[in-house]
C-alpha cells in the first residue's frame, strides 16, 4: 500500500515539473512576470512531493520550501488580483509565523518523525495554519472573481480557468485541516495513521495537481470545448465617423 502511495506521489511530482516547464514557455511568450511565480511554485511543489515520498531528502530545507511554495502562490494571487487596491498583508504573516514556529520546533524535535506528542500537536496546528490559510484564501479570491464573471460576456474557457484554479486550492486547504485530525489519529491509532496520512496527502495533491494542470495548461481543444456554445462577438472595429453617427443617433 505504502509503495503504491509513494509511486503516486512521485508521479504527481513529475507532473508538477512538467507544469513548471510548460509555464516557463508561457511566461517567456506572454512576458507576464507573475507567471514566473507559478513556475517556481510548481518546482517547489515537486520538491515537496518528492521529499514526502522519501525520493529525496530536503532535511531542514523542507519547511523553507513548503513556506516558499505557499508564499509564491499567495504573491501570485496578490499581484494578479490586488494591484492598486488595499493589500491583504495578513495572509503573508499566516505563512511566515508558522514557518518560524516550524524552524524552532525542529531545533528541539523532528516533528515529522512523530516521536513526541506535544511537538506533534504543535506541528499539527502550525501545519494547519501554514497550509489551510493561504490556500483557502487563494480559493476564496479566485472563486469570488469567478462569481463576478459568471454571468458576464466572457469566453467560457476563461471562466473555467477561474473555477478550476480556485477549486483546486480547496484540496490543499482540506489537507491542512486533516493535519489536526492527524494528531488525534497519531495518539489513538499509532503507526497506521502515517499510511493513512500519506493516502490523504496523495489524494489531495493529485486533485490539486490535476486541477492546476488543466487550469494553467488548458490546451486549445479544451478551450474550444468550453467555448462550444459561445459565439465570439464580431471583432469589427468601428471607425470614428461610425461612432459619431451612432452617438448622434442615440441622442436624437
Amino acid at each position, binding site marked *: 500500500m505504502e509503495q503504491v502511495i509513494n509511486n503516486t506521489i512521485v508521479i504527481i511530482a513529475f507532473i508538477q515539473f512538467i507544469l513548471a516547464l510548460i509555464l516557463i514557455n*508561457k511566461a517567456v*511568450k*506572454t*512576458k*507576464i512576470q*507573475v*507567471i514566473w511565480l507559478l513556475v517556481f511554485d510548481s518546482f517547489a511543489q515537486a520538491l515537496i512531493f518528492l521529499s514526502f515520498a522519501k525520493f529525496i531528502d530536503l532535511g531542514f530545507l523542507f519547511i523553507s520550501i513548503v513556506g516558499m511554495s505557499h508564499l509564491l502562490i499567495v504573491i501570485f494571487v496578490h499581484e*494578479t*488580483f490586488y*494591484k*492598486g*487596491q488595499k493589500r491583504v498583508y495578513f495572509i503573508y504573516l499566516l505563512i511566515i509565523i508558522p514557518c518560524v514556529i516550524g524552524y524552532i520546533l525542529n531545533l528541539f524535535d523532528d516533528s515529522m518523525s512523530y516521536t513526541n506528542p506535544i511537538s506533534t500537536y504543535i506541528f499539527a496546528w502550525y501545519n494547519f495554519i501554514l497550509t489551510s490559510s493561504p490556500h483557502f484564501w487563494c480559493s476564496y479570491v*479566485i472563486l469570488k*472573481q469567478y462569481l*463576478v*464573471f459568471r454571468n*458576464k*460576456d*466572457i*469566453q467560457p474557457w*476563461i471562466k473555467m*480557468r*477561474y473555477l478550476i484554479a480556485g477549486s483546486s486550492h480547496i484540496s490543499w486547504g482540506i489537507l491542512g485541516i486533516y493535519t489536526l485530525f492527524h494528531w488525534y489519529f497519531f495518539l489513538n491509532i499509532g503507526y497506521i495513521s502515517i499510511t493513512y496520512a500519506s493516502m490523504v496527502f496523495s489524494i489531495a495533491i493529485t486533485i490539486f495537481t490535476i486541477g492546476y494542470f488543466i487550469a494553467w495548461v488548458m490546451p486549445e481543444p479544451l478551450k474550444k470545448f468550453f467555448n462550444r456554445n459561445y459565439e465570439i*462577438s*464580431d471583432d*469589427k*472595429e*468601428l*471607425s*470614428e465617423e*461610425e*461612432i*459619431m453617427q*451612432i*452617438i448622434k443617433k*442615440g*441622442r436624437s
Partner: protein
Amino acid sequence: MSESMISLLGIELAKYINVSPIASRSIILLAIKDEYGSIGDLNIDKLQLVLSNALKIRLNKLGIPDIDTIIEDLEKALIKNQSILTMASF
C-alpha cells in the same frame, strides 16, 4: 491578452454613453491607438493611462457629459477585474 478586459470596459462605458458595447469598445480601441499607436500587449498601468488621457480626450470630443465620473468608474472596473489580464493571457 487584453481583449477580454477591453470588452468588459466597453460594456461598462456603454452604460454611460447610451451606445452598444461594440461601439463603446471601439471608442476604447481608438483611445488605445491614440495613446500607443497600436493595440499591443496592455497591462493595468498602460490601460489606466489610456483611460485618464486618450479616452478622456475622446469622450470630450464626442461631447459626453460628466466625463470625470465615467473615467473614475472605468478605473474602478479596471482594478476590480484586473485579474483577467493574466488569466486570459495564455
